[in-house]
């Protein structure tokens, strides 16, 4: 069925095809036939898609449940903000968001370059081709699908209410996390397109064209991942901010290769022959991995708590990954074989480019570990029908393999960031000393500070090789962290002395981003290794108000326990206040509904029931004896008798309905004590509703850097007891500060205008 929204999408498809053909004619045949139309066409499509997104938002806000997507992901009782964020709660809406941002960037490309150069034109061709592909994906899973296309919906049926948003999605982080992710995914398109053009035709200037977009993607995607981590930490009770879930891992992989790309690009822009293949290949790989992340979420092949489930676009996505993968690989190989063997002076291993190349390889290795860890279990499942795990405990696989390469990355950071050819020998010596210290530190024995947690029940079942690698002492990270910090400090002080503000600000930005790495790593390692956990605390409800010892010097007091509904109940029919204001209007026929707040049964003569809705309350008279209970929902229709002091409804009939809200919250007010001193208090909640349940832990954040967050998970009252898990999470503030520094640093770098040509 052609709905209005779909008509807009089809029109966008047609117009973008015209723009694409126009560009191809100009580029291939030098035919100017459609050239004048190209830029306006792209801008019109960007406008149409903006309108389409606003239209979808309108359908959500207006609760138009004749659209399947709105019906599935919204309901009348949701607060406005969650009606709006419902647009990106499911696959169809996120495709629309994605394609919209692709065309916004295409419009930017059209406006800034006017397609004047072959590079701009060709980059736009690839961007548009990707855009067209995404319009097709959006059409296949269109958010504008009418419910009358569904087999079991009779024509003319309008659902009274939608089925509501998944309970886990009703919180602030849901509002921010998905848009960041999808905007990040969309904005990598231009750097990819420019890189492919460069691989094809050696067009100069590709790196400048995609530079700000790559940085923007890095910022937005990075913040999206970080916000996801915060969400997992403060809401889901997943047991920390990072669980190596396939979906979150899949979004992290392109961010790693993008980081690699930005390092390659930094050298490539100074000398065009440096990383002339590595840089564009990393940009290409990043885009392919973004598509791969989409597969992980959308194909239904990956088993994750986070995935959208089976869908119709999986095959199309998989073929696009294969196509872009093969094309990039072939182009890269061709360029490699074409490149004449440069007769350059062999500086040996210890040159800046070589060490930088090691850094790039480290990013690739880290990306590969994550990629492989989420991929091969699915591969085994598909080819052999077995379900396998990557280790006895999933996260052990990723931690064990990533750890040594993280140390190497920190060593490379320390050596490279402040590299000076003249001090090479001295610096090599320092590097060797730090590397040796790292290796020695690997063997230091401690109580609990190892790569893998020895006290975990999974530890005993890990294979020999993981036990060996897991027994590396985490003290070994510190020499390289200190070494890297010293290098950043030297780098920063060097730049602070510079007179040129532009260069200085950029240097400060780069230093801040690298400090952010140190902070985040430190926070992640310390917090995950030194978290104190006490599971299985059960406090009987009758012990409310009593401070109970829960072991290890900690005590917990349940101050209060209460339940509530998250959303306001919506009542059908005429609001009671309207009836009371104008009783004479309703003397013939009216339907009201409300909660039973009082009733008075006078035997066979009739029953008086007081109904209350959100606007007011009134009495309803039923004939005979009607069994009602207080607090149940009742819909009554009949006529108004306005002769009384207060109008009364004489009911013809009544229907009961459910007034218990769709989202019920249990909350416990807690106080946590350590050695009889209060260390934190707050509310932990347990939400039950559509799509399962969610835990909202109590978090009393520490205000000092090293202090521990008091973190209590409440799993919902069962058997008259409050089940709690107490955690003390230290140093997690380092990670949060690190994330903020990442953003500040890259924004400083982006703010500096690139050097004018020939300047």
């Amino acid at each position, binding site marked *: 069925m052609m709905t209005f929204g779909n008509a807009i999408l089809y029109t966008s498809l047609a117009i973008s095809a015209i723009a694409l053909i126009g560009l191809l004619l100009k580029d291939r045949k030098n035919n100017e036939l459609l050239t004048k139309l190209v830029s306006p066409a792209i801008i019109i499509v960007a406008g149409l898609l903006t309108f389409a997104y606003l239209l979808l938002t309108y359908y959500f806000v207006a609760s138009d449940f004749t659209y399947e997507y709105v019906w599935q992901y919204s309901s009348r009782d949701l607060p406005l903000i969650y009606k709006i964020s419902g647009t990106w709660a499911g696959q169809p809406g996120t495709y629309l968001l994605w394609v919209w941002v692709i065309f916004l960037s295409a419009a930017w490309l059209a406006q800034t370059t006017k397609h004047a150069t072959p590079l701009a034109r060709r980059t736009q061709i690839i961007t548009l081709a990707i855009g067209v592909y995404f319009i097709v994906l959006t059409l296949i899973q269109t958010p504008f699908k009418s419910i009358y296309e569904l087999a079991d919906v009779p024509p003319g049926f309008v659902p009274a209410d939608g089925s509501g948003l998944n309970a886990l999605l009703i919180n602030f982080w849901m509002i921010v996390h998905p848009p960041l992710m999808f905007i990040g995914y969309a904005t990598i398109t231009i750097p990819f397109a420019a890189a492919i053009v460069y691989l094809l035709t050696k067009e100069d200037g590709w790196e400048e064209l995609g530079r700000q977009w790559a940085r923007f993607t890095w910022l937005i995607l990075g913040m999206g991942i970080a916000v996801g981590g915060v969400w997992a930490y403060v809401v889901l009770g*997943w*047991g920390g901010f990072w*669980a190596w*879930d*396939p979906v979150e891992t899949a979004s992290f992989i392109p961010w790693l290769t993008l980081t690699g790309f930005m390092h390659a690009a930094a050298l490539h822009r100074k000398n065009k022959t440096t990383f002339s293949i590595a840089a564009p290949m990393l940009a290409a790989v990043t885009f392919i991995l973004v598509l791969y992340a989409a597969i992980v979420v959308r194909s239904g092949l990956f*088993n*994750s*708590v*986070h995935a959208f489930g089976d869908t119709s676009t999986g095959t199309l996505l998989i073929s696009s990954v294969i196509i872009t993968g093969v094309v990039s690989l072939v182009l890269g190989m061709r360029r490699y074989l074409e490149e004449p*063997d*440069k007769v*350059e002076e*062999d500086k*040996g*291993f210890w*040159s800046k*480019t*070589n060490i930088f*190349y*090691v850094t790039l*390889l480290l990013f*690739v*290795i880290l990306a*590969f*570990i994550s990629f*492989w*860890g989420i991929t*091969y*279990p699915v591969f*085994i499942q598909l080819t052999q*029908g*077995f*379900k*396998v*795990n*990557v*280790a*006895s*405990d*999933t996260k052990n*696989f990723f931690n064990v*393999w990533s750890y040594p390469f993280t140390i190497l990355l920190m060593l490379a950071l320390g050596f490279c960031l402040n590299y000076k050819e003249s001090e090479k020998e001295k610096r090599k010596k320092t590097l060797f000393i730090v590397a040796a210290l790292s290796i020695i530190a690997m063997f230091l024995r401690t109580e609990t500070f190892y790569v893998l947690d020895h006290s975990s*029940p*999974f530890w005993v*079942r890990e*294979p020999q*090789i993981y036990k060996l690698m897991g027994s590396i002492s985490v003290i070994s990270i510190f020499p390289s962290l200190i070494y890297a910090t010293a290098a950043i400090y030297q780098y920063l002080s060097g730049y602070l002395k510079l007179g040129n503000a532009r260069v200085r600000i950029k240097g400060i930005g780069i230093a801040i981003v690298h400090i952010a790495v140190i902070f985040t790593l430190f926070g992640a390692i310390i917090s995950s290794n030194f978290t104190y956990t006490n*599971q*299985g605390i059960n406090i009987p409800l009758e012990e409310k108000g009593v401070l109970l010892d829960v072991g290890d010097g900690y005590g917990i007091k349940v101050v209060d326990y209460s339940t509530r509904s998250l959303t306001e109940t919506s009542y059908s029919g005429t609001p009671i206040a309207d009836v009371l204001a104008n009783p004479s209007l309703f003397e013939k026929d009216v339907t009201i509904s409300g909660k039973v707040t009082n009733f008075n049964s006078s035997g066979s003569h009739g029953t008086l029931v007081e109904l209350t809705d959100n606007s007011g309350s009134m009495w309803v008279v039923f004939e005979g004896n009607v069994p009602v209970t207080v607090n149940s929902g009742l819909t009554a229709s009949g006529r108004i008798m306005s002769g009384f002091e207060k109008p009364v409804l004489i009911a013809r009939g009544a229907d009961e309905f459910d007034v218990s809200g769709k989202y019920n919250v249990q909350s416990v007010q807690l106080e946590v004590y350590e050695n009889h001193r209060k260390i934190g208090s707050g509310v932990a909640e347990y939400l039950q509703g559509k799509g*399962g*349940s969610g835990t909202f832990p109590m978090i009393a954040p520490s205000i000092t850097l090293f202090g521990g967050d008091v973190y209590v998970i409440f*799993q919902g009252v*069962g058997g008259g007891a409050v089940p709690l898990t107490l955690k003390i999470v230290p140093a997690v503030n380092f990670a949060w500060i690190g994330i903020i520094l990442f953003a500040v640093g890259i924004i400083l770098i982006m703010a500096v205008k690139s050097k004018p040509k020939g300047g």
Partner: protein
Amino acid sequence: MKTKKLLSILVLILIISMAYGTYNLSLSQFKLSDKNNSYLGGLTWSRSLDASLQKAQQENKPIAMYFWAIWCQYCAKFQSDTLGNPQVKEILEKDYVLVAMDLDIDRDISRKYGVSYPPYVIFLDGKGDVLERIPGAVDANYFLPIVTKVRNQVRGK
């Protein structure tokens, strides 16, 4: 150029051997389920409810039906601490017919028994009637009395 080529080849070898090694390690040590059985918490579980019902009737044993999912964080803990508890494990192994349902695959059975999240254990008799339900990742202290009670209940019949 030469150094970079050498480095790339080294990394390629490293990546391939790591990939090959972990792949085989998973097949030999971390198999969770194949066509007929699931291997969870050190126990072998049948994947067929019908066959298990038959077996339960023949041997006059109750059925422990465990609902799990590979992505379930609490399941891993539940398997190692609760199902892996020596006492629980012994009773389950000796006196029960074990069947495991994968929430990603066995959706119909999950829906039929009203299970919407893992971990979840349902005890059945040979006729398929529900004797007891244990939703969520409970600890062994909670689990053990119930397993014992259900076993005695079926034996007493």
